[in-house]
């Protein structure tokens, strides 16, 4: 296919159909049916079987006009990718469309208390009572469960098989009495995750994905997409409509959608250490004059700048299609060093005020939130979980 032609076609279609004052779902419905919303998807399922290069072209045309795309927030697209690969036509029929329009929100029900990053250790059970599956147990580290309509559930259906071979993959309706969602309060007062309790929760027989006892393979698909998409998804919103002023009903509705999804992550900048505040505060507090502070501040600037540049080098290499060097995998390790050092610097800068939180604390409590959030960086085991759940 010829890229220029594609660009012209999508551009023409957008000019003909895009209306900032339409309803978000209304517009997306039109978009999804047009096949322009997910051009990389199969032609049969709201897509056009486009290769990555053409997909990028389409995305750029969207960006030029600042057009809102299909719903990407949360783990919707992971659910979709999993269903596309392992789901029946009935599943695709029932779920894919409402995923892309944003009507349905999804959550992932894999991790459990204690099992940490060892997903195969799941002990939540699903038993078939002859006409449907009855689920009992508990899941942890689920991010969007509190506003999810559907959940991707990994549950044990065979207790005699080796742990990887006794799991089955389901789609569970989150709106039922057997499902209780509880926010998991953190030491810094926020709650980015939920615990989900199942007591005789019900899963329709037809909502089993793939085959019985084949859940691990299906889950691997979800995780693979999670990793592959992580970056793309995170930037998903950032690069839309740069420089295009975004007014109109549709943008308001989209902003609301984003806000809901982002809400659990408002403290993440603090978790990262808020290096951006270090220099301004060093000057404002006058602590910049303290030679010991100067040394630590310099250490922080060195570490954070070098870490950022290392990430940029990795991205540049990637964009040039160069073989991915080791520098790509170092982000997390660097981030935890930065966060710890930033906390030390912010403590030095705050002086005795480091004792105080909320309105009494420096920066109206932001500094206290930093000090109480950095330990979350590079939590053994937990980390990947947490990182992956970020959109």
């Amino acid at each position, binding site marked *: 296919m010829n890229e220029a032609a594609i660009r012209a076609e999508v551009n023409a279609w957008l000019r003909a159909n895009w209306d900032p004052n339409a309803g978000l779902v209304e517009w997306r419905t039109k978009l999804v049916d047009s096949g322009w919303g997910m051009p990389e998807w199969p032609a049969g399922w709201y897509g056009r079987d486009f290769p990555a290069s053409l997909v990028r072209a389409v995305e750029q045309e969207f960006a030029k006009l600042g057009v809102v795309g299909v719903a990407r927030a949360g783990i919707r697209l992971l659910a979709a990718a999993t269903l596309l690969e392992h789901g029946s036509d009935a599943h695709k029929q029932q779920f894919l469309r409402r995923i892309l329009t944003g009507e349905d929100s999804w959550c992932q029900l894999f991790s459990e*208390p*204690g*099992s*940490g*990053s*060892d997903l195969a*250790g799941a002990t939540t059970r699903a038993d078939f009572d002859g006409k449907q599956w009855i689920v009992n147990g508990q899941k*942890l*580290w689920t991010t969007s469960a509190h506003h999810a309509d559907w959940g991707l559930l990994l549950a044990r259906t065979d207790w005699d098989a080796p742990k990887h071979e006794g799991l089955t993959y389901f789609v569970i309706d989150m709106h039922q009495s057997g499902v209780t969602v509880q926010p*998991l*309060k*953190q*030491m810094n*007062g926020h709650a980015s*995750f939920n615990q989900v309790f199942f007591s005789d929760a019900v899963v329709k027989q037809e909502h089993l994905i793939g085959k019985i006892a084949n859940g691990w393979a299906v889950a691997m698909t979800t995780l693979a997409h999670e990793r592959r998409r992580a970056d793309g998804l995170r930037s998903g919103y950032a690069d839309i409509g740069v420089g295009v002023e975004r007014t109109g009903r549709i943008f308001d509705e989209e902003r609301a959608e984003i806000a809901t999804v982002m809400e659990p992550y408002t403290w993440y900048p603090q978790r990262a250490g808020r290096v951006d505040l270090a220099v301004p505060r060093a000057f404002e507090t006058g602590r910049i004059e303290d030679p*010991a*502070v100067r040394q630590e501040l310099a250490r922080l600037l060195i570490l954070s700048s070098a870490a950022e540049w290392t990430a940029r080098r990795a991205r540049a290499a990637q964009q040039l299609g160069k073989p991915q060097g080791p520098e790509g995998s170092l982000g997390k390790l660097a981030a935890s060093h930065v966060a*710890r050092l930033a906390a030390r610097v912010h*403590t*030095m800068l*705050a*002086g*005795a*005020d*480091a*004792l*105080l*939180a*909320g*309105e*009494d*604390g420096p920066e109206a*409590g932001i500094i*206290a939130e930093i*000090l*109480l959030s*950095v*330990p*979350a960086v*590079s*939590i*053994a*085991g*937990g*980390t990947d*979980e*947490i990182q992956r759940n970020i959109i």
Partner: protein
Amino acid sequence: MNTPMRFHFTDEQTQFRDMLRRFLSDVSPLPVVRRTMATETGYDPAVWRRLAQELGLTGLTLDEHYGGAGFGMVEAGIAMEEMGRALLCAPFLASAVLASDAIARIATDEQKQRLLPSLAAGQTIATLAFAEHDGGFALQAIATEATRHGAAYTLTGSKRYVLDGCSADTLLVVARAPGSLGIDGLSLFLVRGDGSGVVRRALQVIDPTRRLAAIELRNAQAELLGTADAAGPALVRTLERGCIALANEMVGGAARLLEDTLAYTKLRVQFGRSIASFQAIKHRCAEMLLQVELAKSAAYYAAEAADAGDAQVGYLASLAKACASDAYLHTAIEAIQLHGGIGFTFDNDTHLWFKRAKSAEVLLGDATWHRERMIALLPRPDPQTKRAEQVA
């Protein structure tokens, strides 16, 4: 050091520790701590009474003459260490260590006779109000001024970071003579917590187990304790003892965190094996253990030196405080991370010690401040020593 150090606790001291540990786990287990830290005053008067009446802890270091137990810094250190382990929420550091020591050093016999017995009995709670927003915990930076009216005084200024400042009956306020500088011209004053011209406000704190107050003084009625304008040097000693006490509290908390973490990692199974069996975890635990043991050694040594009247106690107090601050914080962060995601949740207890580590790190001056102070107190060695030690 010229005084011979023991480097171990006597059997009596060990018994005292064991008794105290049992008592605290009985009267203030973690559920009680969580309940107490959610209250307005931040401590439990009933627990405080039992501490006073059943153990006489409130008068631990005061002379028998005033109804105290007449023990030294080592015993106070043991008490602080156990309280740090148990995360006890109580005005012990404020009242039984700082305030008691300040009065004992500075007040006249008549004043001691009048004030100490009720402190020793735990009937009244006192605190030392010296820190201010500018300059933090440095006595030199105190700006609050005392104005003399015949025999009486009035104080005007703003105190901050006052330990248990809202629950204390008696405020020991440090103020300076107009025009004085540094630690010269500092005096210690007695101010009633509910006195006129005193406005107290609880500060929002990072560590709910340690309450702090901001205290506004506007011509507050005050009684001079001891001699006017001469409290500076004594207050330096008092704060040094406070640092030693705090260092011992910190090692107690750090040691407890280490134990809990080791237990947890042994317990927690991942990929079919205890995560403690992962070599990298072992190494991190070994490093924690080292930090904790070093900090213990420094805290114990400083306490013993204080009782031995060691001339270097100021240096040793700063050393112990700096060492414990870094060790406790390191241990707390590692503890949270080795607990995995659950260690960051509010229901898991680890963060309670982390927050205590954070407040202890900053209280009475952070590690950087005390390291600088160490060097400032370092005696210039005579050229001989170096050559002498070279063979060693």
